[in-house]
């Protein structure tokens, strides 16, 4: 039958068409890194056209006071805004827009002179008052205002001079200056929250890059080199694409579609990488994985208000097991609060150095009157490997009778829990900072970031920390910290587990384009000339 033949022809055409479109779909070989921007380049000779960073979160806000979806926003905010001081690739705070600085004999007055002729990306001149406005915004926010608690006031003496007055000496002052919360923006456009909301939809930049494409609902963020910056970045265009799924990120990196990835799955370290094209490393962060417990009035779980219960929680977790099973032994368990990486102030403050002690835990639970245990809700951000940790914690705590419900949520919802709802019970998270004192500041300073989130700060601990932050003698600092960490364990509203790390992948050499390794909230792009090293 003629029609039958036609049908058969149709069928074969159909299969051919399907095959053809799959042929069209076949990818070509992995995008080759360019000659001047690869694993062998150096900051002095690298020229990168486009660099693609695969991130976990969409960039939905460029205002540090109003974060939406996660730390990728912090990183992008940092690279497209002006900074007085800026973190270099090693995480050291270097002068950026500040030309010179002098400090008074009593270390309480610091005078900064900005570089001359500074302009934002739209040509507006950068004036010292912009820093004052930024400082005001920061000190009234909930975010790490503890870092600048020692600042009494700051005044713009003229358009290029800033005078900071401190309440007590502050050796970590430059680290505070380099924080992303002190980004410079035209003062008259952000001095009220309403104006700021409008401004941050399309901010201008005094930093190495400026915003090119910013769509809060889309998956792409682009930042281009800022021609008005005082140095020339080695990068022309930074593209940030959102890939929330860890496997998709890994696969995208593997086949060359992206140049840099963060938070790769554990399996990445077992893949045989071509070392001439890819650089994959488990990098330790200057941060601690920890378990905060909400001490605020809206926290509904009565058992958690008893510090004996909290201590029992701390004594009954298998830190070594968690770091081994959930993190593949890529980092070790902690015996104290601080991060254990390049940290001369690290000390052990946990009983038995953090090894699990179920019998002591049970004794404490009985003393507190919870020999039958209780129910608890553990909030966990759904990052790579963190849900596995939650399962191990649940098993650990079931041994002292606690029934844990795991509440896995995206970063944006966890942010809601911490900033708005405030009725979370207990959480798994981390605390990163540029220096050990700043990390402790987040936890124990009166205006510390995490102290604010949990709604509690021990006054004596805060005092010890404040003193230590003004000292210069390491022995004295250590003495204070020993006392502080003892108080920390007695209260146990922050339970340390291990030093943070994550697995990153890149196809260019280190120190060119990356988040600085200690602390992942910033981003770094090498420039020529580089940030001054004095």
């Amino acid at each position, binding site marked *: 039958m003629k029609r039958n033949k036609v049908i058969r022809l149709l069928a074969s055409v159909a299969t051919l068409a*399907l095959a053809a479109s799959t042929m069209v779909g076949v990818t070509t070989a992995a995008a080759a890194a360019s000659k001047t921007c690869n694993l062998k380049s150096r900051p002095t000779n690298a020229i990168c056209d486009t660099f693609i960073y695969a991130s976990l979160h969409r960039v939905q806000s460029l205002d540090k006071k109003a974060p939406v979806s996660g730390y990728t926003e912090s990183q992008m905010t940092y690279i497209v805004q002006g900074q007085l001081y800026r973190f270099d690739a090693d995480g050291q705070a270097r002068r950026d827009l500040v030309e010179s600085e002098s400090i008074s004999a009593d270390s309480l007055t610091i005078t900064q002179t900005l570089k001359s002729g500074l302009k934002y990306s739209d040509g507006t001149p950068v004036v010292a008052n912009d820093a004052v406005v930024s400082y005001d915004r920061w000190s009234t926010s909930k975010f790490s205002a503890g870092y600048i608690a020692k600042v009494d006031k700051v005044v713009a003496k003229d358009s290029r001079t800033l005078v900071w007055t401190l309440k007590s000496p502050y050796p970590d002052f430059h680290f505070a200056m380099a924080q992303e919360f002190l980004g410079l923006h035209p003062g008259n456009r952000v001095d009220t929250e309403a104006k700021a909301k409008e401004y941050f939809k399309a901010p201008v930049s005094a930093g190495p890059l400026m915003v090119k494409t910013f769509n809060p609902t889309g998956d792409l963020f682009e930042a281009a080199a800022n021609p008005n910056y005082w140095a020339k970045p080695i990068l022309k265009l930074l593209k940030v694409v959102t890939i929330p799924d860890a496997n998709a990120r890994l696969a*995208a990196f593997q086949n060359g579609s992206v140049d840099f990835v963060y938070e790769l799955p554990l399996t990445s370290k077992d893949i045989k990488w071509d070392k001439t094209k890819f650089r994959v490393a488990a990098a330790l962060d200057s941060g601690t994985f920890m378990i905060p417990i909400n001490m605020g009035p809206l926290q509904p779980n009565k058992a958690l208000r008893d510090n004996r219960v909290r201590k029992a929680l701390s004594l009954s977790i298998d830190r070594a097991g968690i770091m081994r099973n959930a993190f593949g032994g890529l980092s070790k368990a902690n015996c104290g609060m601080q991060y254990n990486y390049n940290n001369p102030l690290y000390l052990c403050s946990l009983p038995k150095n953090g090894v699990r002690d179920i019998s002591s835990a049970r004794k404490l639970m009985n003393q507190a009157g919870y020999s039958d245990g209780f129910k608890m809700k553990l909030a966990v951000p759904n990052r790579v490997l963190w849900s596995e940790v939650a399962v191990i914690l649940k098993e650990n705590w079931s041994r002292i009778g606690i029934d844990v419900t795991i509440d896995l949520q995206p970063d944006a919802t966890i942010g809601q829990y911490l900033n708005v709802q405030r009725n979370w019970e207990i959480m798994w998270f981390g605390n990163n900072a540029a220096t050990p004192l700043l990390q402790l500041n987040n936890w124990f300073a009166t205006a510390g970031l995490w102290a604010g989130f949990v709604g509690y700060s021990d006054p004596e601990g805060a005092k010890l920390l404040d003193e230590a932050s003004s000292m210069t003698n390491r022995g004295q600092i250590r003495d204070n910290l020993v006392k502080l960490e003892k108080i920390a364990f007695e209260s146990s509203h922050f339970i340390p587990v291990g030093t943070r790390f994550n697995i990153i992948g890149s196809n260019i050499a280190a120190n060119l384009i990356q988040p600085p390794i200690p602390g992942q909230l910033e981003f770094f792009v090498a420039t020529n000339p580089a940030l001054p090293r004095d």
Partner: protein
Amino acid sequence: MLNRKGFVNIIKSEFLSRVLGRLIRSIAVAFWVMVIAFTLMRLAPGDPALARLGPGAEPEAIELLQKQLRLDVNPLQQFWGYFVELLQGSLGDSLQTSTPVLSLIGQTLPVTIYLILLSTFFALLLSIPIGTAIAWSGRSPLVYGFRTITAMLLAIPNFFLALVGMLFFSVKHNWAPVFGYNTSFPENLRYLWLPVLVNTIIMTSVISRVVFSSIVETKREEFVETGIIRGVGKSRFFWFYILKPSLAPTVVLLSYMMGTMLGATVILETIFSLPGIGRELVTAVLVRDYPVVQGIVLVFGAITVFLSFMGDLVAYYLDRRVKI
């Protein structure tokens, strides 16, 4: 006596009246779709604004959100406000980013639609010949094998099929990119071919079965026998007597299927990181962005109603104008 002109006139008016009837029914359904999309948020126990912000939020923030979600007035006024806003072409603003929901949908819907259209195209191209050939031949081992295989293919969850496909094509062999999307044609084929393949396999299984069974039924009809007796030309016979009437149920099913596909595509978009409306819905649900969820649900419902209306029209056209 019915002359040719009169005959055509009758058909035309009947067609029109049917269309009108269907249209009215569809509008009624669309109205209920709107009501349901509106009601969803209020079905759950408790106050949505409170659920989103939690008891720790400042009362002003809760009040503001309630006003934004129109929860501060009585339900009838709420619906009226919602309806008016809809007529003005607005679906509200996202709670996360304050951008209009409509623009969000405008950005992401085309991707999903494109994916579904491609899958449907290929599925039709494959199932009509396959279903027809097997139904026409009637050989029972062939039929048995066909029905068993399609039954099995239908039972495999689409996300599992997609994962296996991804493991093979993207990870082991790098024939398909793992993420991303390029809106220009034909580059986007590169990102779409694997999800389209998965969808096509599933859709073909369903559609070919329907084609098969409806051709089997049509074969038995009286007018077919009449056609054979009268010696109608082979190709004309095939089209008018067999294929066209059988396609009617296929088309009805197709419009229903495309609606279901919209749902199944949600999972595929998540696996392949495609920036479509399904993935947008999941993201909005995870962060409780109610206006976005409500808007997307409304769009889905409206599309399905539209599709079924069109499907009915096409089916009517296919099955009513058999020339005697």
